[in-house]
């Protein structure tokens, strides 16, 4: 059992490309830390450095307090689950699971017992003599897990282990991996590009972008208090609506396109930094669930309504996802665009821009009577607005 500590860890590839820059991260014993980010964010490189499969260019990597920068993988006692599972195709399930033990020259009967225990835990007992090609995707995934846990590693590393499974299987295995991880109770680093996976599985989540750590915290914290535009746009599905806006000179209103919203006192108090933004440009963020159909609201207060044209409605049963076009400019910082690109892979259809209008999404009650093509009024939960500095992308709090 060990904690994993990364101190200012950097990786520069021989061609001069930086993959990870000054990464500080600590994973406690038994904790599941999810590294999430778009492709090329350096998350897999970070994981491979912890595994010992990549050299560390600078910085210190500790496991259980011991510096392991130059330790070969086999001496780090890490187990890793790969995206492709990387099962040895010519070996049976039992041989795959027991290979690491065999390399440690463990007596055969002990290997057999351990493999049997692991197989039992993972429901693989009937498949011990099968070859990987005879198994389903979910079973292969379990074999990969078995191969990792049978060694009783002090650190568990997983590189996008669910990305080769279909949607249903993914949800099932997500729960299963969490269950096994808690049972084994070792420090775990889990890499994914899927923010849903990150949110549902992680004790804590580290968001990476362009090799740099953007924010690390509990899923709830990342969702409620994103540190910057990138995290705000990346975490949450559908993604946060981000528009260029301005704070009125009296500091009491936020102007979005031709419309404005009143800033409630509570919000101004909790974000003293906003006072300094009077008369200046900001980026405003509205989570889709903080927009509701005004027709269903009892009596919307003044300055809490935004009007937009409904483009498309996706009924999900428990809610409607209303895609709209609003008279405003979408925040187009590089970070937001990158985050958006990744989020879009997840599903929401990309809407075409019409004139100066920008797209947005609201999650409204299924009782809503909104129709595609109609003009809608949305009540905004202004207490939950997010503000970012358009130059630095940093969230405005203090």
């Amino acid at each position: 059992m060990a904690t994993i500590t990364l101190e200012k860890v950097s990786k520069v590839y021989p061609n001069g490309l930086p993959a990870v820059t000054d990464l500080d991260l600590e994973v406690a014993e038994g904790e599941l830390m999810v590294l999430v980010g778009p492709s090329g964010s350096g998350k897999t490189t970070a994981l491979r450095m912890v595994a010992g499969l990549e050299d560390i260019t600078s910085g210190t990597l500790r496991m259980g307090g011991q510096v392991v920068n130059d330790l070969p993988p086999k001496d780090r006692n890490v187990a890793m689950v790969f995206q492709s599972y990387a099962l040895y195709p010519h070996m049976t399930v039992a041989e795959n699971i027991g290979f690491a033990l065999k390399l440690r020259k463990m007596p055969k009967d002990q290997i057999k017992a351990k493999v049997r225990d692991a197989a039992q835990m993972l429901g693989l007992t009937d498949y011990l003599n099968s070859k990987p090609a005879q198994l389903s995707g979910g079973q292969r995934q379990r074999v990969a897990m078995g191969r990792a846990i049978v060694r009783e590693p002090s650190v568990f590393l997983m590189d996008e282990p669910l990305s080769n499974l279909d949607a249903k299987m993914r949800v099932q295995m997500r729960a299963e991996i969490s269950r096994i991880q808690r049972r084994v109770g070792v420090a775990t680093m889990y890499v994914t590009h899927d923010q849903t996976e990150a949110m549902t599985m992680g004790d804590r989540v580290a968001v990476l972008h362009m090799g740099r750590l953007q924010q690390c915290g509990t899923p709830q914290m990342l969702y409620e208090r994103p540190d910057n535009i990138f995290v705000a746009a990346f975490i949450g599905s559908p993604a946060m609506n981000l528009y260029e806006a301005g704070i009125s000179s009296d500091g009491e209103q936020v102007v979005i396109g031709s419309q404005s919203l009143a800033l409630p006192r509570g919000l101004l108090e909790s974000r003293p930094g906003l006072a300094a933004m009077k008369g200046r440009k900001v980026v405003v963020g509205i989570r889709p669930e903080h927009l509701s159909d005004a027709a269903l609201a009892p009596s919307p207060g003044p300055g809490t309504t935004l009007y937009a044209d409904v483009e498309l409605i996706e009924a999900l049963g428990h809610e409607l996802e209303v895609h709209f076009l609003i008279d405003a400019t979408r925040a187009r910082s590089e970070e937001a665009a990158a985050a958006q690109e990744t989020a879009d892979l997840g599903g929401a259809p990309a809407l075409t821009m019409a004139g100066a209008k920008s797209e947005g999404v609201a999650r409204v009650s299924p009782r809503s009577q909104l129709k595609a093509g109609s003009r809608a009024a949305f009540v905004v939960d202004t207490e939950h607005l997010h503000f970012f500095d358009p130059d630095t992308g940093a969230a405005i709090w203090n």
Partner: protein
Amino acid sequence: MAATTWAPPALPARSAAAPKRRRWSLGTPFSYMTAFVVMGITLVPILYVVISGFRTSAQINTAPVAWPHPWVFTNYTSVLKSSAFWHYVGNSLFVALTATALTVATGSLAAFALARYSFKGREALFAVFMVGLLFPAGVASLPLYLWLKNLGLLENLMGVALPEAAFSLPYTIFILRPFLRAVPGELEDAAVVDGASRLRFFRSILVPLSRPALTTVAILSFITSWNAYLLPLLVLSNPIHYTLPLGTASFQTTYSQDTAAILAFAALSMVPALAFFVLAERRIVGSLTGALRG
């Protein structure tokens, strides 16, 4: 979905390319004709040798191309009963097996390094091996002879086996390198994390996965050195060391009048190589279907 288990790249399997319903086109009769011609050129001489072995020399002299009448078995039985023949077979087997073992062992390791290690000058080194493909063995015979003489390997079967293995290395590496390269890096990473050294990865993962390719190069190497004539001729002059091709030639000189016996001897000298090919070819197909299954 991405491929989740890796299977060795398929060598052309017989059934894979065959469409279920063949369409007749102008090209089809032509390709059949070509196939028949090629088959004829290959098979007719062999069949002629085998069948004529069942005739007497007198029969052959009167009608060179004819069916045996009557069938005579003495040519074959006398060759099979001669101790010289079996001695040659033994020598040939020793040379071919040694050369094959050396080729496969060193060639696969060289291909491993050239495929999966990155080091300066790797491509240049690979090019050197590939130049070997263009290098006619005959050109090397004189320096090779002198070298073997200095090493005291003349009149020694190893003096044939070692150069044969060396001459087989270029195509062995040529065939094996892409095969070893195609094994995904994640498998190697997994083995490394599991605690395997690079050599252990080679032995426990790469070699079993490359069995079809290894079998292919083994067959090629075996047959090349089995059939080698020039090198044994240079190195071996004492009939005690003769390999089968040399033995056949010497038999031919000794019994130059007995054409039928020579043909029987030649036919029998082909049998071991053919047998090896048939056995190994089964294994190629076997490991291919094995790979497809997992």
